[in-house]
């Protein structure tokens, strides 16, 4: 396996994207695929095109069945002999120099560009023709956290052993100024200049100013081992184990009640959380391929382990009760539960059998289990008391009902059980059948069933106090608003409405599909697919949702050199009655002893709301694409796509439309010359309606006293994306020049309007006179230009010199103002947000054939 060949053999379009080097290596999806790096996207200097073409068996082979041009293959390596073995190898090494905003986070996304020496690629392949034995090694290192090494050995038709080691960085911030020591751990302690729970905004701002900008990143490393064994030509066994570790830190939250309604109070903090976890993946299976039967039996397992169970942080701000004459206990310690350890197992069996009429019947069944059983953490992490001290005694008790003893809540004894003990069992069953009763007619059918069963549930109950529910905001709310503890108690707070149970989301869904494909004439086909899917969720607004669809597709390759594809689909969704509050059982209103508050139990939400995943919907999808061969050496492709969704919702998502167009031109007049140009544009429109509740009352009707019509508001999102690129590559004897230009441009605009200021949670925003507006445009644009030359100095030595200039621009109004200060009232931002960059990368690399 020679990835440089894959890279070079890809369509010119792929090459056109090459200058967007940071995106050339992904963040870790599909990590068992052949790893690469940002340099390999431009190929190796000595990888000359092979004029002999792609195959000894057929001439030309210049186009895919859809009409796209294949890239010219590369010349095979010249092998050397070593006893019974033959081998070839190559090494690319050299240096890169980065100028400009070299520390910028966007520039460094998924790649570590440091000026200095780089090993672009070391590749050695050995073969023993006598018995098909082979051994391969590939390695690369661009920087301290960016590299890979993989090895494989085996014998063709007998076995294969693979091993992989890879590291990849993901820089998430280049300008973090956290006010805590301990970044990267799960214990954030305020800088010495700040007093926990006793600092003001000015002190925090001064502390931020004293912190040098830091880089926050998460490095992902993966180690894997795999074995394939060809037991017989019919039976193949496989097994693989891998471990993926993530290590680093990234911006996170840290709430101490919200601040905007309580100026000078509470605390909204952007903390920095650690990322220190490992996931072990196991996969094993055995496969049989017979003349009539095919079978596959497989096991997959995944085991996630987090080093930390929780994140603790300190808040610098004092909490002040809203009731005059009272004081707050000085709490400042907050916490977050981090991801729980969890295990996943899945067993799957698949059988397929050939049928008469060129048919096939397939049946597959699978069962899985997901489980987590971490020890639970206490509801609060404080010492002494929290809440509001009404009588000044500092002692909780009946006479001081809003002051609470931390000892009643800061221990696992305050929980209804010690560990999570939660499990989800999954089942899946699929069957499909296809037959071809006539040469020009194929029929197919499919049935499938899925089910998820949530086992066990958690009831938030504190046996030490008799309270149900969770402490909100680390106790901060109760320390500002007397009695706002966030719990229900049959004696002390019988009318409190709060969440007390976990929400099991058991579900099952099944679907059926029937289809037919007609060969209308030679190279003309029409297909019709009818399908229905019934989803039966539990504890959702609907207990049944049905999606019915009809899809028509047409492919025409009748005209020589033209491939035309068109499809159109209509998907209609409806279901049973929509219930706005299926969640009541998870709240204290369901507990015996609950006493409805004066005025009744508030409506859970407005009756007219239709959540978009369950709302009635009519969707139309259309695709049209064509590829035209322009002579033997060029092709032109164009496509139009549309997806229009109308939701039957007075409140909720109403419209979501997307449409786009692409056009691409490719030209390969000779192995020495190739060029391409592409352009794509798409747009999306999302419109939603909502209404503010002005009173916590029991009437959920739209237009009623709780959800008045003048509380309505609407939001409209418009997104427009463009991408374009051009590339040309030309060989002049031993010299090959390549020039690439790329553009990625995305722009999003959110506008809004509202019926009256009643619609706004923050009334001051509605006093400016208008009833509509828009947020500043969100913008992300990257322009890149690269110029390279590859020079074959000798048959074994080649030189590559390249320059990559890239400019990124980003506008994100969420971060407006943070360049002048990270502290706004009691809101503290660690990260200054993404910023634009201008960089230039020069590389000089030597390719050596070993």
């Amino acid at each position, binding site marked *: 396996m020679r990835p440089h060949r894959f890279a070079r053999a890809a369509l010119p379009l792929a090459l056109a994207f090459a200058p967007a080097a940071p995106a050339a290596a992904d963040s870790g999806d599909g990590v068992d695929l052949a790893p690469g790096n940002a340099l390999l996207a431009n190929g190796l200097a000595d990888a000359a095109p092979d004029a*002999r073409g792609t195959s000894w068996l057929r001439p030309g082979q210049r186009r895919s069945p859809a009409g796209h041009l294949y890239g010219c293959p590369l010349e095979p390596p010249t092998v050397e002999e070593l006893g019974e073995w033959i081998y070839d190898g190559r090494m690319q090494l050299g240096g890169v120099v980065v100028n400009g905003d070299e520390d910028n986070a966007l520039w460094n996304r998924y790649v570590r560009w440091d000026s200095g020496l780089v090993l672009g690629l070391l590749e050695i392949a050995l073969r023993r*023709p006598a018995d098909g034995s082979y051994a391969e090694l590939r390695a690369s290192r661009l920087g301290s956290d960016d590299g890979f090494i993989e090895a494989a050995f085996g014998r063709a*038709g007998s076995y294969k052993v693979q091993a992989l080691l890879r590291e990849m960085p993901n820089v998430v911030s280049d300008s973090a100024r956290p006010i805590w020591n301990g970044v990267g751990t799960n214990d954030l302690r305020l800088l010495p200049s700040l007093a926990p729970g006793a600092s003001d905004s000015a002190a925090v701002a001064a502390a931020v100013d004293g912190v040098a900008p830091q880089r926050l990143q998460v490095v992902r490393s993966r180690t894997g081992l795999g074995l394939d064994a060809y037991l017989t030509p019919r039976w193949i066994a496989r097994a693989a184990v891998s471990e993926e570790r993530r290590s680093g830190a990234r911006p996170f939250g840290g709430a101490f009640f919200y601040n905007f309604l309580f100026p000078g109070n509470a605390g909204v903090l952007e903390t920095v959380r650690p990322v220190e976890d490992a996931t072990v993946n196991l996969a094993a299976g055995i496969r049989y391929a017979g003349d009539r039967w095919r079978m596959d039996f497989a096991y997959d397992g995944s085991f996630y382990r987090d080093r930390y169970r929780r994140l603790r942080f300190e808040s610098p701000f004092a909490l002040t009760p809203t009731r005059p004459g009272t004081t707050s206990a000085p709490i400042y310690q907050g916490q977050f539960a981090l991801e729980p350890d969890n295990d996943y197992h899945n067993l799957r069996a698949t059988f397929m059998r050939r049928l008469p009429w060129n048919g096939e019947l397939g049946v597959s069944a699978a069962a899985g289990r997901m489980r987590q059983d971490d020890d639970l953490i206490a509801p609060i992490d404080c010492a002494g008391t929290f809440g509001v001290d009404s009588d000044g005694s500092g002692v909780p008790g009946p006479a001081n009902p809003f002051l609470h003893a931390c000892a009643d809540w800061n221990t696992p004894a305050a929980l209804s059980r010690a560990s999570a003990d939660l499990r989800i069992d999954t089942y899946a069953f699929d069957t499909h059948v296809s037959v071809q009763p006539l040469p020009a007619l194929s029929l197919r059918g499919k049935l499938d069933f899925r089910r998820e069963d949530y086992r066990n549930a958690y009831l938030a109950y504190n046996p030490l106090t008799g309270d149900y529910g969770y402490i909100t905001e680390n106790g901060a709310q109760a320390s500002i608003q007397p009695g706002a503890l966030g719990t229900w108690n049959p004696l002390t707070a019988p009318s409190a409405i709060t969440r007390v149970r976990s929400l099991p989301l058991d579900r099952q869904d099944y679907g059926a599909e029937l289809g037919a494909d007609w060969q209308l004439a030679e190279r003309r086909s029409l297909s019709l697919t009818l399908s229905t899917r019934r989803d039966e969720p539990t504890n959702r607004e609907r207990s049944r949702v049905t999606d019915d669809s009809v899809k028509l597709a047409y492919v025409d390759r009748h005209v020589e050199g033209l491939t035309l594809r068109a499809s159109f689909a209509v998907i209609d969704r409806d279901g049973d009655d929509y219930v706005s509050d299926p969640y009541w059982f998870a709240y204290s209103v369901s507990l015996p002893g609950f006493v409805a508050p004066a005025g009744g139990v508030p409506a859970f939400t407005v009756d007219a709301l239709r959540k978009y995943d369950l709302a009635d919907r009519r969707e139309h999808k259309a695709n049209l694409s064509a590829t035209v061969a322009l002579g033997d050496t060029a092709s032109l492709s164009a496509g139009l796509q549309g997806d229009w969704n109308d939701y039957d919702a007075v409140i909720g998502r109403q419209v979501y439309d997307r449409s786009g167009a692409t056009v691409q031109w490719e030209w390969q007049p000779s192995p020495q010359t190739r060029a391409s140009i592409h352009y794509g544009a798409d747009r999306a429109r999302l419109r939603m309606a909502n209404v503010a509740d002005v009173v916590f009352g029991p009437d959920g009707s739209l237009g009623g006293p709780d959800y008045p019509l003048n509380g309505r508001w609407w939001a409209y999102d418009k997104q427009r994306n463009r991408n374009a690129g051009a590339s040309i590559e030309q060989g002049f004897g031993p010299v090959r020049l390549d020039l690439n230009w790329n553009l990625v441009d995305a722009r999003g605009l959110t506008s809004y309007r509202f019926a009256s200021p009643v619609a706004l949670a923050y009334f001051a925003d509605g006093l400016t006179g208008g009833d509509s507006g828009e947020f500043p445009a969100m913008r992300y644009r990257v322009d890149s230009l690269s110029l390279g030359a590859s020079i074959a100095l000798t048959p074994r030595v080649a030189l590559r010199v390249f320059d990559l200039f890239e400019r990124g621009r980003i506008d994100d109004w969420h971060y407006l103002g943070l360049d002048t200060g990270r502290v706004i009232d009691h809101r503290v931002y660690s990260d200054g947000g993404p910023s634009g960059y201008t960089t230039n990368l020069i590389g000089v690399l030597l390719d050596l054939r070993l």
Partner: protein
Amino acid sequence: MKRVLALLLFSLPPLAGAGGFVDLRDAPVVAGDAAAGAAKVAVCVACHGAEGNAAVTAFPALAAQHPGYLYQSLAGFRRRADPASPMTPQVQSLGDADLRDIAVYFASRRRSAPAVSSAADLPGARLFRDGDAARGIVPCQGCHGATAQGHPLHGTAPRYDYYPALAAQSADYLAARLRRYRDDGQVDTSNALIMRGIARNLDDAAIAELAAWLAATPRESTSTSGDYP
């Protein structure tokens, strides 16, 4: 003049590969006059037998072979002009039309080798059909057909006329030819480039098994130049 034209035609791009080999992937159909060819094979049959059914097993049988393959073989002898080859002087005086006529003539002759009823039981049958993954030997039938009559797609495009029928070929000749592919490294056509890689993993035992089975497998028909659209 005809000879000059023939030489010019011979060097036209369809047969001249970019890498110094004759590219048969897009080679044209080989047409000729069998009757005329019959008048030009007096020297040939001395070694290759009457109507191409060689009696001496060191020499290949030419009867019922596909005309494209025969023509390209003859052209190869002339192109290489190997002084060590006994074929070199035989073809030097022949023009391209002569080669085509001769090829078409032998293709039209019936192979007279006797069939062996137990051929299917020979070990070479399985090797030909399935190959041997453990030894790196690929199945031969992919390019030479399930019963070694030629490429399975013969008749659908001219290029498949350049893949030989192997059935009823002399075992000695087949073994020698395969060893040459394996050991000599002399390849100058795109098809020979395929065979060079394949023969690399054929040991002497495998060659002997294959040759024995192929020699015992009957050739089912004669061959003609295809009529392609």
